[in-house]
């Protein structure tokens, strides 16, 4: 029943968002039907489109799950962006110099990238643990440091002199992550991470404690949960996931090198996805896929119609507002209706 309700709310709000956007497209003298058809064709319409959508969605799923686990545990990790970049730059640099066989190198590089992200989040974890510094502010600030630190690395010590923009050298070809029919292995890693995260949150004792901390930290503390060490673990783990997203972007993506702007908006999109998914890991995965469709379809839409791809950012924002708004509206009105019928009943009984 709960699941059904949540799916229904999501569908209703997404449809509402599409209708609102259709009206806006109309006022700009374009055809909404054409726009949506293009979105569909290039986002889902064929295997090529679909596999490309899944590849686009992969980093979003990582950062989304990272944010969802953190928020659900009452840990405000907003540092996905910086953690992702640190993971990416570490993997990119090691990928140039490391000299081991492919079957070993790819997992090692991925995991090392993940640890780089965890280490970056670990700074915030340490500040929180020893100086009670709010991770909200420290992870946020580490984003900026991470951003410019990685650009520095790509601009000076590890600059590829042949590149036109600040970028590191291409990683060794043996470390390119394989794909099946266009679908990169990174996506399967994302599915594995989804299963692992779901298991951690729902089944393990530590996951239970973490969720209770998210609901009510005083309750958890007094109940005997290891609040401090769980918070540290969650920060490190979610940092790892973001770092892994960065590593896979280098190993699996299209560029295979670290360049300025590679992090795009993955970090913040992940935070946004986690929020609309109500910090639920499974929902985060599906919203990640959905935003992947939009991002991927946007390229085709720009190609076929006169609507620019920036329009998708607009559509995303409308969807976020619609989901969150619909959720509270349904809650509010269903309660109002129920209390009104109850009032009628009570008065009639008198």
């Amino acid at each position, binding site marked *: 029943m709960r699941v059904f309700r949540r799916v229904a709310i999501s569908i209703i709000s997404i449809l509402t968002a599409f209708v609102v956007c259709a009206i806006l497209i109309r006022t700009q003298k374009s055809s909404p039907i054409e726009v949506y058809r293009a979105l569909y064709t290039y986002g889902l319409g064929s295997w090529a489109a679909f596999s490309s959508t899944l590849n686009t969605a992969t980093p979003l799923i990582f950062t989304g799950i990272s944010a969802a686990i953190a928020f659900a545990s009452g840990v405000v990790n907003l540092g996905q962006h910086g953690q992702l970049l640190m993971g990416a730059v570490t993997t990119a640099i090691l990928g140039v110099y490391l000299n081991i066989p492919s079957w070993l190198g790819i997992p090692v590089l991925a995991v090392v990238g993940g640890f780089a992200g965890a280490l970056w989040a670990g700074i915030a974890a340490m500040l929180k643990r020893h100086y009670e510094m709010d991770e909200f502010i420290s992870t946020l600030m580490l984003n900026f440091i991470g951003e410019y630190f990685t650009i520095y690395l790509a601009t000076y010590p590890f600059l590829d002199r042949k590149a036109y923009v600040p970028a590191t050298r291409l990683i060794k070809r043996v470390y390119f992550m394989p794909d099946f029919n266009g679908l990169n292995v990174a996506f399967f890693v994302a599915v594995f991470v989804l299963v692992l995260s779901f298991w951690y949150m729902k089944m*393990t004792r530590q996951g239970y*404690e973490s969720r209770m901390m998210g609901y009510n930290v005083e*309750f958890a503390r007094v109940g005997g949960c290891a609040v401090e060490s769980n918070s540290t673990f969650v920060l490190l783990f979610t940092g790892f996931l973001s770092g892994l997203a960065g590593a896979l972007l280098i190993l699996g993506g299209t560029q295979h090198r670290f360049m300025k702007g590679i992090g795009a908006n993955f970090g913040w999109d992940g935070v946004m996805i986690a929020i609309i998914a109500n910090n639920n890991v499974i929902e985060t995965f599906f919203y990640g896929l959905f935003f992947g469709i939009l991002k991927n379809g946007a390229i085709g839409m720009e190609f076929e119609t006169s609507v620019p791809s920036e329009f998708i950012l607009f559509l995303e924002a409308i969807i976020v507002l619609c989901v969150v708004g619909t959720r509270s509206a349904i809650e509010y009105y269903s309660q109002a209706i129920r209390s009104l019928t109850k009032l009628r009943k009570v008065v009639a009984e008198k």
Partner: protein
Amino acid sequence: MTKIYKIYPPNVVALSGVDLSLDKGEIHSVIGENGAGKSTLMKILYGMIKPSSGEIMVNGQRVQITSPLEAIKLGIGMVHQEFMLIPSFHVYENVILGQEKSIAGFIKKKQAANHVQEIIDRYGFKIDSNKLVSQLSVAAQQKVEIIKQLYRKADILILDEPTAVLTPQESDELFEQIIELKRQGKTIVFISHKLDEVLKISDRITVLRKGQKIATVENKNISAAELAKMMIGRPLSYQIKKSQSKPKREILSVENLSVRSRKSDKEILSDVNIYVRNGEVVGIAGIEGNGQYELVQCIIGKIKPDSGRIVINNADVTALSIRERRRIISYVPQDRKYVGLALKATILENLIMTHHLKKEFHKGFLSLNWKKAKSHAKDVTKQFEVIYRDLDEQPMVLSGGNQQKVVVAREFSLGSDLIVLDQPTRGLDIASTEYIHRLILEMRNADKGILLVSADLDELMQLSDRLYVIRDGRIVAHFDPNEVDAHTVGTYMLGAAG
């Protein structure tokens, strides 16, 4: 007020067709159990919440009271259970706040203070309007609240459970004050669930039960037993019988415990020594804010004491974390909504907290045994008579009594030798209170050691085998409750004794 209905969304019926009429210059008591709708009715009269239907007439005029401001204009004032005063302001500043008279934005402080003092003297209060509120006792702060309403020219004064925070002596003084107010033509609405007080001062009494008005009676030839029957729908069978306790060994001992506040550098607890033995209930009496909360926090490990030791079952636990201590302590916190429960988690998840540390709830290296968790939840909800629809629901939908039963079920089923109870029955209806009292005695008879902190002196007198009185962070007395009466304990709470 006629035919007042109030439904709290989604479907909680708080009031169902309640009528209430107030005559000028009377003391009208509204009584009922917790959850009977007293507070809701008063909040409607004071414009704090909107009724679902019904009408209100003041002096023959139909009115819509949409905000407290509106209520004040109509001469209706309310003194809440929680005071709304600014401690660092003077008495007169608190009184005039929101209604200050100013010239070009400047307040004539002297004039205001004099004006407030005039009101204080006219109604016979003994308070200096130039004192800081933080220097006043709780009882005096309550008077400031009343003066505040008088300054706003309230003719109808609603006092919401004013004696809940007072000692017996302070209550008596308040009653004299109330009668004085009545003599000067004010109408007083007195909310309470303490029947003896109601009988002492009211002219008329309205009884509410489960959101319905049962009756309005004149305070003549009516007994407490009759009122109680109207209030709970059946005669009060409330008699606690217990055998003499036969303690053999010490379960908890607190030795020379001191805690200094980091902020004010004041001693919150100084040199506290108490002990709890098996098979006895040990009460801690005291006016709220005298250190009993901090004492409990020290015992469960949330506050690290500056000096002293805490020994449980002959093991020094002073250096242990909350997690380690909770394996040997059952603890019912005073605030069930914010500490006792996670209202947004499921009932099941609430019931297994702390139990999840135990081996039998483990599965494999990391996992929680959810099957065991479910069977445990089913067992304890049955054993402790928790009424719920589905274990996957949130405790938010349960009534206060059932919420507390969830907490108690969880804690009492832990099986620890030491049970620490901080205000276990605060805000509960009579039936639930009675039930929890019975459980406490059952635990006592099962040879547990129980530490009971409560603001309800009657509860302490009835349940405790021994009673400590705490004042200003010091244990000032240690009684056998059979040998003293509530008034004597009250004197120690106030610090008026020798």
